[in-house]
């Protein structure tokens, strides 16, 4: 994972967030991905979302597996601890970190290879566990880092650069997540910052695991005609179900123009969902009967889009009453890492009296 330090040149007129940090403070090392790689746009959206939310950088833990996508944790929030783990196993490492320190904002970045093949088991079980984290899949339909093999999200009929055609059915991470009980599911496109940033903000604020599948074209291996994960294909077939607009409890930042409009200008239905942290997500659906709080109709909508060759995007499902890992484990409100030894060790008197049980 290469990353090159960026020249530091602070712009005097850059806006600051409530922590007094500029957007530059949320950036990371210089990307070494291919020019035009969709993953870099996702990085930019994460930077934007974290800055707007005024996430304290030191509270964030950036977790990833292995792949071009997994490299991106080095390209944002340089003031945060990062952990580039092993291929397909980010979810378990993230779960361990989240279990140990509930005060961390865990940001997990993965790829379609990382999450849907080698790491499919870990993805589904992290969802079931409802680890408190943002889980981004930068989905390009290929293994970028190993030079362009099909991934498990490649659509039937999609073609590799060399002309090979995929004949196996794809795994749709969004449908999968819904069926294993995910409590927050969104999808967007790396090229659509307008839509992606608010989804990321809502996802970060969600209590539990928030899965965001981002179609993120690989310009080198999968951005040609015949690829269903190309820029062109995605632009033509993107159907936004729900526009999300996350509003924190006290929002110091001007966010006008961010995700406030729906993509097609219909008279939309608006739904306001209160999240655990006190913030709200305002969901604007393009079809008035779309209900992002109903798992079954979300499933139906996504499948229907799929049948029409369209990709459902937006905030597709949210269960704002979800019980996260720590709620289920009833872990102490003080992070486990902050407990003192006296709080943990029963001491010699307890041991003495316990010994009677073994007589």
């Amino acid at each position, binding site marked *: 994972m290469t990353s090159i330090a960026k020249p530091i040149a602070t712009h005097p007129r850059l806006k600051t967030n409530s922590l007094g940090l500029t957007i530059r403070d949320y950036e990371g090392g210089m990307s070494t991905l291919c020019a035009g790689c969709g993953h870099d746009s996702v990085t930019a959206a994460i930077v934007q979302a974290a800055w707007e939310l005024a996430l304290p950088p030191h509270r964030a*833990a950036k977790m990833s597996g292995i792949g071009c996508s997994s490299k991106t944790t080095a390209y944002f929030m340089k003031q*945060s601890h990062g952990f580039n783990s092993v291929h397909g196993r980010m979810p378990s490492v993230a779960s361990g970190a989240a*279990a140990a320190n509930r005060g961390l904002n865990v940001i997990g970045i993965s790829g379609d290879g990382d999450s849907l093949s080698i790491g499919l088991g870990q993805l589904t*079980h992290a969802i079931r566990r409802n680890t408190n984290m943002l889980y981004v899949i930068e989905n390009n339909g290929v293994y970028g880092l190993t030079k362009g093999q099909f991934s498990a999200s490649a659509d039937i009929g999609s073609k590799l650069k060399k002309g090979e055609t995929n004949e196996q059915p794809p795994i749709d991470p969004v449908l999968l997540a819904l069926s294993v009980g995910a409590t927050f599911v969104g999808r967007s496109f790396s090229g659509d910052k307008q839509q992606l940033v608010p989804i990321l903000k809502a996802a970060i604020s969600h209590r539990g695991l928030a899965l965001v599948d981002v179609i993120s074209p690989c310009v080198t291996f999968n951005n040609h005609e015949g690829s269903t994960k190309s820029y062109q294909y995605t632009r033509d077939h993107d159907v936004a179900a729900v526009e999300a607009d996350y509003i924190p409890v006290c929002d110091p930042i001007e966010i006008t123009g961010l995700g406030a409009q729906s993509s097609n200008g219909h008279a939309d239905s608006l739904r306001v969902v209160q999240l655990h942290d006190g913030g709200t997500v305002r969901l604007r659906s393009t079809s008035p009967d779309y209900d992002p709080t109903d798992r079954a109709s979300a499933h139906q909508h996504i499948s229907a889009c799929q049948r029409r060759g369209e990709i459902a995007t937006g905030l597709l499902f949210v269960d704002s009453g979800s019980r996260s890992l720590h709620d289920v484990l009833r872990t102490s409100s003080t992070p*486990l890492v902050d407990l003192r030894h006296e709080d943990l*060790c029963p001491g010699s008197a307890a041991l003495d009296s316990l010994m009677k049980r073994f007589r």
Partner: protein
Amino acid sequence: MNGVNDFAFKIGTVNGTGSASANGLLMRSIFRMGIPVSGKNLFPSNIQGLPTWYEIRVNGDGHLGRAPELDMVVALNPATYAKDVAAVREGGYLLYDSSWPLPKQLEREGITVLGVPFGKLCVEAFEGDRERTLLRNIAYTGSLAALLGIDMQVVDELLNETFGKKPKLLDANHKAIRLGYDAAVELLECPLPFRLERMDATSDSILIDGNTAAALGAVYAGATVGAWYPITPSTSLMEAFTGFCQKYRVDPETNERKFAILQAEDELAAAGITIGAGWAGARAFTNTSGPGISLMQEFLGLAYYADIPAVFFNIQRCGPSTGMPTRTQQPDILSMAYASHGDTKHPILFPADPGEAFEMAVQAFDLADRLQTPIFVASDLDIGMNDWMVKKLEWDDSYTPDRGKVLTAEDLEKLARFSRYRDVDGDGIAARTLPGVGGKGAYFVRGSGHDMHADYTEDSAAYCELVDRLRRKFAHAITLVPEPMVIKQEGAEIGLITLGGCDAAVREAQDLLRQQGILADVMRIRAFPFQDEVKEFIESHESVYVIEQNRDAQLRSLLMIELGVPRESMTPILDYGGLPLTARVVVEAVAGAPAGVPA
């Protein structure tokens, strides 16, 4: 054998019929009479219906390794009659259920066959198949009490403690015990020539299994995150940890829990969770056995290369593959020592019994934090799942955990630049920071090439610098891990090297050999990496035997590789059939072999 407070017997039953509690009752009664005792549960990998045995050894001198021979076998499972009758020593006894005529299979010259109609007695006394089956076990316990001279007052006391809150069960158990006891007194000559006499040799001791003790060690060390995937024989470790945490770590007012136990989807995830939690600053562990160790390989390499503390309890069982899950062995010595691809090495602690499992569990967490690396605690099925008599566990309240080199926000203030992997002290250990500390403390963990600043590198020199530091760190570990235990005998020319659960049998063999005029020193290795002292021991003995429980002499190989001692200088004694080691195996190998002949 075969005297007062010196004998062994085994009971053959069918698993799932409730014999386990009867066997526990027998063992505990003997223990309460103040007599040293050990029990070995030889059980099948099955829930119900297959043969299972329980061996009990009584030894006033305190030799509690598995008994070299059996003075009596209680044969209650027709499916194993042939095997059971053959297991009795010449001149020994066989006790069977004489509700039916003596089966042909049980006839044997040179032994005494005793019969008590347990089945018939229970059919007459109790209602219902389930109750009759369960209480038949208690009935044979009563007969054994009469035959062996177990104090019935002690038995009654134990029954009262166990069933005190369930009067109906208590009555039935008392009745069944009496049935068996009275029948034996009436039908047989009681007690037998080998029998029990009260002693006072257990008052400072307990009966405990190693998994329970290790779990307790984890609680006392302050472990807060446990991740696991069920596997015999390690499962009961996390179950015990859960129980102790519920007892000691739940806030009575808020109900909040000061622990997190995650049952993962597999051992890969269990390792990942452990490493993630260790990185975040918790004391974290996972418990597993051979197949799990195989699955954890990639993560072990990551934790090694990225300097992350974590504790791995490996309760070893018979491999390869699924092997014999309910049989004991020490088959993972090499796969732990060098776990994962690339150049890797991991410290291993080898407890010999549950007492040491408790101590070493605590040490493992200190070492993991100090050395910032995975630490194995290599127990096995025999230590982990059998009840052992050990000294009462003790705790020193002045203990403070060694969290190793961790920089706080204030420490970071004073630094011009924090470099995660810079070896300032020359011990190969660089100071770490925990996520949440912020500012200069942030760094990027990666399993890919990194330099001392934790930045990505593909530069040869930077790479070598890092892996050489890890080598220095491993060398430094030698100064921190527990030293070997040595029991010397004046004038000994033979050296016996062993590890882990072989200890009891090897010490007994040392005594038996002395009685034959063969003097041997014993060295029990307690950790990897090995101290110089181990090399000196090998070099200073005319002939050295390395006693271990695997086919391929893995400890000997590790000694050869790591200490550079020649293969010819060590003769392996290998016992790998899956049962705990007996002193006889060692004595026969040493006394039977001309000294100094290599294998």
